[in-house]
């Protein structure tokens, strides 16, 4: 009884939040499709790409008889995205991603989920297989719903660790996190991924407050779960040194990404999500 109640409550929560998220992601994806890739969708959503003369080894089934009947040769209707890529998404759902420096700003996690979902929508529409880390990538619009469900889970830890299980060899991977925790697990994960020939994108999602450090006075800083703690008498004095450290971390992430053949990008929740989405999509495309 209680389990089913709990389930129902969760389902309802999900049902309330997800369509909104989905709609937003679809909207975001639609703007991008129109802007960058509109030409590919000509012909009422047909997946037709081109006709080519049939080679040896083409299955008889693949011959387009209607086209072939108009000439002497046989033609095969070739479709776009014949060989779909597998893209694995890892969205850091740790507590640190729940931070927002301003009550009017959405937490970092929201932005990360939105980006991930929008990217998924884009990729799925393009015929790719998309999956969350830990699950197998699957194509089709139906996959969106399972992605949604997977995205809504939370990690009670302070900082998340990337998962590489479920990554398909020579596939693509997208890591969305603030990368503020220990970088060791990330390095390991990236090394493993590189070993498998997986290339991809590191998207660092930061809150403007984390970029700015707009704090003054006597302050105790705590991590979201309280595992880390730092007390200062004058927070303002720490600012420059903090910013140095942040720049250093970004530089390290960039180097790391470049070494593994990945792309690194830092985005802020204060900025538009579209830029980041465009960048991520191009980065995935260019890496192909």
């Amino acid at each position, binding site marked *: 009884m209680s389990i089913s109640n709990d389930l129902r409550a969760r389902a309802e929560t999900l049902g309330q939040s997800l369509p909104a998220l989905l709609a937003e992601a679809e909207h975001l994806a639609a703007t991008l499709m129109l802007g960058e890739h509109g030409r590919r969708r000509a012909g009422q959503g047909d997946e037709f790409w081109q006709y080519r003369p049939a080679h040896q080894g083409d299955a008889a089934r693949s011959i387009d008889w209607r086209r072939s009947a108009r000439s002497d040769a046989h033609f095969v209707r070739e479709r776009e995205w014949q060989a779909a890529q597998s893209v694995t998404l890892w969205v850091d759902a740790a*507590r*640190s*991603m729940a*931070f927002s420096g301003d009550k009017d700003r959405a937490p970092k996690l929201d932005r990360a989920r939105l980006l991930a979902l929008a990217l998924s929508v884009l990729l799925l529409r393009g015929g790719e297989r998309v999956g969350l880390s830990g699950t197998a990538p699957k194509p089709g619009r139906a996959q969106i719903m399972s992605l949604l469900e997977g995205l809504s889970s939370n990690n009670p830890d*302070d*900082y998340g660790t990337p998962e590489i299980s479920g990554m398909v060899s020579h596939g693509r991977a997208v890591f969305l996190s*603030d990368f*503020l*925790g*220990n970088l060791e697990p990330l390095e390991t994960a990236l090394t493993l991924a590189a070993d498998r020939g997986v290339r991809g994108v590191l998207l660092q999602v930061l809150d403007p*407050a*984390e970029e700015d450090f*707009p*704090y*003054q*006075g*006597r*302050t*105790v*800083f*705590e*991590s*979201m779960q309280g595992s*880390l*703690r*730092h*007390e*200062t*008498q*004058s*927070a*303002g*004095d*720490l600012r420059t*040194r*903090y910013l140095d*450290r*942040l720049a250093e*971390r970004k530089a390290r992430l960039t180097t790391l990404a470049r070494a593994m053949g990945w792309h690194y990008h830092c985005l802020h929740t204060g900025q538009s999500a579209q830029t980041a989405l465009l960048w991520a999509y191009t980065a995935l495309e260019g890496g192909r």
Partner: protein
Amino acid sequence: MLAFTTPWLLWGLIAIPILWLLLRAIPPAPIRRRFPAVALLLGLSDEDRQADKTPWWLLLLRALAVAAAIIGFAGPILNPENRAPGSGPLLIVLDAGWADASDWPRRMDKASTLLAEAGRAGRTVAVIRLTDLPQPVEFQNADAWAGRLAAMEPQPFAPQGYEDWAKILPADSFDSYWLSDGLDHPGRDTLLKTLQSKGNLTAFLSPRPVFALRPAVFEDGKISLTAARLPGDAADLDVIARGPDPSGIDRELARAPLHFDANAPEAKTTLDLPPELRNRVNRFELLGQRSAGAVSLTDDSLKRRKIAVIGGTPDREGLPLLQSTYYLRQALTPVADLVEGGLSDIIPANPDVIILADVAKLTPVESDALLEWINKGGLLLRFAGPRLAASELSRAEEDPLMPVRLREGGRSVGGAMSWGEPKTLAPFPENSPFHGLAIPVDVTVSEQVLAQPDPDLATRTIAALTDGTPLVTRKENGAGQVVLVHVTANAEWSSLPLSGLFVQMLERLAVSTKPAQPDAQDLAGLTWVPQKIMDGYGVERDAGEIAGVPGEVLAKAMATGPGPNLPAGLYASTDRKVALNVIAAKTEITPAIWPAGTAIEGIETVKAQALKGILLTAAMIMLALDILAALWVSGRIGGLARTTAVLLATLLPHDARAQTPDDIKAIEATRGVVLAYVQTGDATMDQISEAGMRGLSDQLWLRTAVEPEAPMGIDLEKDDLAFYPFLYWPITPNQPLPSTTAYAKLNRFLRTGGMIMFDTRDGDIAGYSGDSTPEGQTLQLIAAGLDIPPLEPMPKDHVLTRSFYLLQDFPGRYAGGAVWVEASDPTAEQTEGMPFRNLNDGVTPVIIGSADWASAWATDPDGVPMFPVGRGYAGEDQREISYRFGINVIMHVLTGNYKSDQVHVPALLERLGE
């Protein structure tokens, strides 16, 4: 002086050092912040370890706040009243005479302070004014007196009833406060002793000097003014003479400095005024002394009449005593200005009185001029004599220049050739102006001319002999009168000219002016009606319905000063006026002497001021500051500094290029043509003007190429006029006059081609005369300072009649009023073949009218007329014409004499064709 209501609370101040230590030990609590990037902070150390202590200035602020609170609760009082509180009833005595008036508010303050103090002590109080008539004193609650005290005013006379008050004071003992005027008044000792016998007496004295002005005296052709005071330091004052100017407005006519030497009780100055000015003086006053004692009203004694004396007989050399006018000249020279010359020369000089002594024959021209002069208010005084008796003048028919018909010959009694005794005068009847004059027994009449018995004779007789024959007869004629004395002006026929009665009679006839102070006999027998009375501050007002007083009472008051029943002021009887001043020529001003042992205090009121509220407020403010400061120290309002900086930046003038409101208005005004109107300060009027200009702007937009922007109101004092071609100026009666700078701006505006359209808006009542309404008068006042050229009513061929529409009427809401514009060049003539004169080189700088144009033009924002014009369709026609006139005006303003030049177009075209 500082006192505390609960001084023991001040011990709490000891706690402040402890507080200091405590506060110093406890640093402000840190803020806890969730911050994921804390990982990056780990290991960063603080540069400044001192910050965990409370900053010294914050400590100081808190200590001060606590100290202020402690002191505040201890109840400090600044300037506490330290007079020993008495008990029992309290009598507050005010002199409330003229000498109190100059610092009456301070006395009131002191009295109310004393009253409030007594109220706090629970004492019953009574307040008495010694200038009031004595009445029983009732001790009442202090609150009951507070309202009555506020209504008390100083009286325009000195306290007189000290002894009566002393008698009527209650028998029980009471304390008294005496707010003295510092002068000694009769009976003061008695009152002082009585008050001292009842209880403690405290006297309050004002340090302000008391000045008094004595009546002006005419000496050696100059006005001599004397001021008195209580001896003191050297002082300089000004005496000013006030009176109506030729237009009837009361203003300062002359001014003389008055210097008191140190310790001198009196100072004297003289004023030399021409007779015309002197006769206008109403009152003298000491400048800056607001008291009835510093004001001296003038009466007839200063007015010197112009009298022409014309004798019938040529002067017989060497026999001055026999001259017909000798006694008249003797009587009149000291008190009047005599005019010499022939009758035809004298009448244009407009004397007040013309005396004809035994003149029988006048030329018709002279008699007509004389009659006209009498009708305008002149007094013709004729004396009989042998020539008159022998002439045929006024025999059969009454001559207009004679009050009665005369019987032939006259009569002679008591002479060598006649029977009987010389006649004496009968007592003057009550309706006679001479009523009340004592008749000396030795005045006899031996010869006289006799009046014909006529129905009017009895009423015209104002003095008669004991046998009833008229001696003086009088007749009203127009505004003036003709008086005939039936005897000669010299001692030939009677001994009257030798007596003092003769002078008094001349005086009563208002022929001569009274020499100085009228004596009791002068005033006796007449009823004197107050015309103007003064209040305690020396301000005159109309006496209204106050009953007249007998001359005897007035004469007594002249000696002793005015009293409660006889206020100071100007009293009149028939033609004569007598001023009853607070200070008479002999009124003594002596300082009040207080016996040793009397408690004397100053009258300065220093209000006890409780500081509790101020201190507690200060403590609260400091605590509030402490909150902000603590927040700031602990970084909780990091953004505050920035917000404040931004706020300050927006508030402070930060950039020289920033646009001031003036600049914005200038930019708006130069966006296009803007019709401007002068803001009168009357909100309704300004609204109408705005609506009028809007209506006219709309019509201009619809019908012409002029496309005005929204109209603007102009504040003459602030705004620059250079941007506006046209200014509509409605006149309201209570409009303030522009300042000098505003006038300068307006004149520059007019000189540089601007036009002002003055509208008195009274076309419904004013008609053609300009100044018959308040608006017209205001316009005259305003326009006096403007550089306006000569004006004329708009001629039929003025360019305004054809600058856009062809017009002959210029109605606004009212039709038919005259419209005045700059006068055209008088040399302009109509050229042959031209319909108009070549006029109006330039724009008329002003248009003055009364048609209330703005109301006719006014539309609301929807374009609907706001005010009805005329009736029905005719009214709408009038509105249309009014709009057309407005358009013509604007066209004239903008194009000048262009339409006038158009007259030459045919000629120009013809020349071009050649």
